[in-house]
């Protein structure tokens, strides 16, 4: 809509000619300037500029929907009202059905905690027919760090849904629905994204997994603010892709250690010394999610995977619908599963903290079953 040509908008002939003479060809060009700038540029009076802008705005502005019709539309047309069940009952209940369609869901956690395992399970689930709880469609899996293991995928399938995967043709059909891309650079990733957007709907793609987003960006040379800018186009693009295709998009993220550049207070907080309670979490965990605060705003649901006193937890750190709950989980040969469906409610900003304690024992324990 933003790139709508002015020539296609029914404006009075005189002003339409002036627009094209001054090279203001798209709605975006016209709306990016203030009224006075347009007056100067086009050499027309204020009333004409205003009425032209109003006409352009009316065409470019998106149509409205009442929230009620939105809800009815979602429940009629989409699987479970726009949610993809993960198979983890407690998590699905908290998320009101599962991973939401049309928005970004992030999995963040330290290395080896189980993010890729979770992604493999989700990809498998999405490829299954609907009577098994799947989305009956293709999955695009963008594997940046070459962690995708089809052997592991089929093992998960065999243990979780033996009735399907024991038959070779069915296993082939399901595994055939998962398309793995391995971009070696951010530029290649950008290209694949653009291609994906074009072919999404035709090819029955029902889920997009990006594993991992942080690895893509860390390969580039820019630091700090420049890196944020590089990323912001991608954030915007992936969100719009998710939005218009109404599919769940799962993105994994890494952690990095907190450095002194990480701000956590506002200027008015620093001033008042009396009564301000020190946040205990600052001294507890030295890990934060990578990709910065802009990314943290852009994701709709953030699931933090961490290890604390030898146990692993999956926490719902950010969600428009779920309270801040932590579920203990473990990794078995049939993928990831919850040890308890009753989440423990976590108070305060602790839900965002990422712990990494007692991890070494876990790696040795978990890996036995995998090889």
């Amino acid at each position, binding site marked *: *809509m*933003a790139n709508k040509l002015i020539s296609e908008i029914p404006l009075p002939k005189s002003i339409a000619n002036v627009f094209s003479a001054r090279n203001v060809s798209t709605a*975006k060009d016209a*709306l*990016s300037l*203030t*009224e006075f700038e347009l*007056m100067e540029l*086009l*050499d027309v*009076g*204020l009333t004409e500029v205003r009425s032209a802008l*109003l006409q352009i*705005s*009316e065409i*470019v*502005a*998106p*149509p409205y929907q*009442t*929230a*009620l019709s939105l*809800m009815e539309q*979602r429940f009629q047309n989409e699987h479970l009202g726009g949610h993809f069940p993960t198979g983890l009952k407690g998590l699905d209940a908290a998320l*009101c059905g599962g991973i939401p369609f*049309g928005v970004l869901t992030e999995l963040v956690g330290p290395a080896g905690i189980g993010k890729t395992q979770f992604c493999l399970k989700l990809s498998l689930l999405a490829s299954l027919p609907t009577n098994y709880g799947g989305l009956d469609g293709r999955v695009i899996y963008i594997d940046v760090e070459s962690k995708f293991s089809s052997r592991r995928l089929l093992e998960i399938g065999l243990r979780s849904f033996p009735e399907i995967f024991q038959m070779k043709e069915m296993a082939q059909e399901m595994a055939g629905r998962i398309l793995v891309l391995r971009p070696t650079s951010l530029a290649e990733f950008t290209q694949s994204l653009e291609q994906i957007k074009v072919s999404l709907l035709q090819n029955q793609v029902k889920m997009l997994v990006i594993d991992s987003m942080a690895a893509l960006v860390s390969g580039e040379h820019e630091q700090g603010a420049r890196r944020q800018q590089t990323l*912001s*186009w991608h*954030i*915007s693009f992936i*969100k719009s892709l998710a*939005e*218009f295709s109404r599919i769940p998009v799962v993105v994994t993220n890494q952690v990095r250690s907190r450095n002194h*550049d*990480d*701000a*956590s*207070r*506002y*200027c*008015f907080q*620093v001033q*008042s010394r009396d009564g*301000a309670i*020190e*946040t205990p979490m600052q001294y507890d965990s030295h890990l934060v999610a990578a990709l910065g*605060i*802009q990314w*943290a*705003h*852009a994701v*709709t649901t953030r699931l933090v995977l961490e290890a604390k006193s030898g146990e692993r937890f999956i926490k719902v*750190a*950010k969600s*428009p*619908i779920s*309270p801040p709950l932590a579920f203990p989980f473990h990794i078995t040969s049939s993928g990831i599963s919850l040890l308890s469906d009753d989440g423990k409610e976590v108070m*305060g*900003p602790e*839900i965002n903290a990422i712990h990494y304690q007692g991890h070494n024992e876990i790696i040795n324990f978990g890996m036995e079953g995998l090889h």
Partner: protein
Amino acid sequence: MEIWRLPISASQRGKLISAGYTSLSSLSSISSSDLARELKVSESEAMNILKVASHSRGSETSNASCSIVEGAQSAWDMLHDEESLMHITTSSADLDNILGGGIHCKEVTEIGGVPGIGKTQLGIQVAVNVQIPNDFGGLGGKAIYIDTEGSFMVERAFQIAEACIEDMSEYNRFLRKDFQECKIKMLPQDILENIFYFRICSYTEQIALINYLDKFLSEHKDVKVIVVDSVTFHFRQDFDDMALRTRVLSGMALKLMNLAKRFSLAVVLLNQVTTKHTEASFQLALALGDSWSHTCTNRIVLYWNGNERYAYIDKSPSLRSASAAYSVTARGIRNSSSSCKRIKMM
């Protein structure tokens, strides 16, 4: 007011100046045909210029107290307007207290905070609470929800609407004191029907929509709140020219303020945070820059203090700087449940 300030095209202005008309008074006594001859323009164009000039000079008004300055309103008259100002409750009494009753109508309020603090929750709560009927102290109006990030979840809006209706029934029962089960006739679906949802995918659409709202609001006069969630997202990317971004943003803010005043509604803008380097340390600050921070009338920052969510009035022309605790529950925004809650005066 000099000629160069008139809202006419550059070439007309140039012709006026080269013909010797540099001030408005010089245009007061000339007829349109003479002007047309002098400027070598058509008579209709000359009439237009004279009309614009006389309008800017100030015409006679009916209100005696405004005869000194065109368009002014005396402070005494404004006091009456301010006292009858409507508020939208946030469902948290502590928060309403520091806000002077709730979110003010006829004003633009900016609310910002870190991800997960509850901005969208507060936005949805306000969109539901504006519909509380007059009998219960609400505005009985409708809401516009402009979603730029896709964070609006219908199921959550349904939950909050349901809880609001239950609270109203409870209040009703308490008022009547006859302990009868008096249900409100409102259903959560009715509340959802009165929320007009727009999904914005680029900053061009955002600007276009705000331009279009004028017409939309004339057709839907019962809208009493506009929530933009978030105003930041599309302006944080795509803009290489920061000066242009500042100009576009301030133009947008002015239009919103205009809408707020003309249609007597509340505008709530949700903002994100960024890190700012000040005095050798990094601090959190609301996004969109320093120029933007001047444009909104009221500014509320939501932040974590220990394990509690707090709201702090960062900027307001009439409210004192204070902070209050609130919580996000399954029923929506409510008072904080901790026993040591107290309103901190800064």
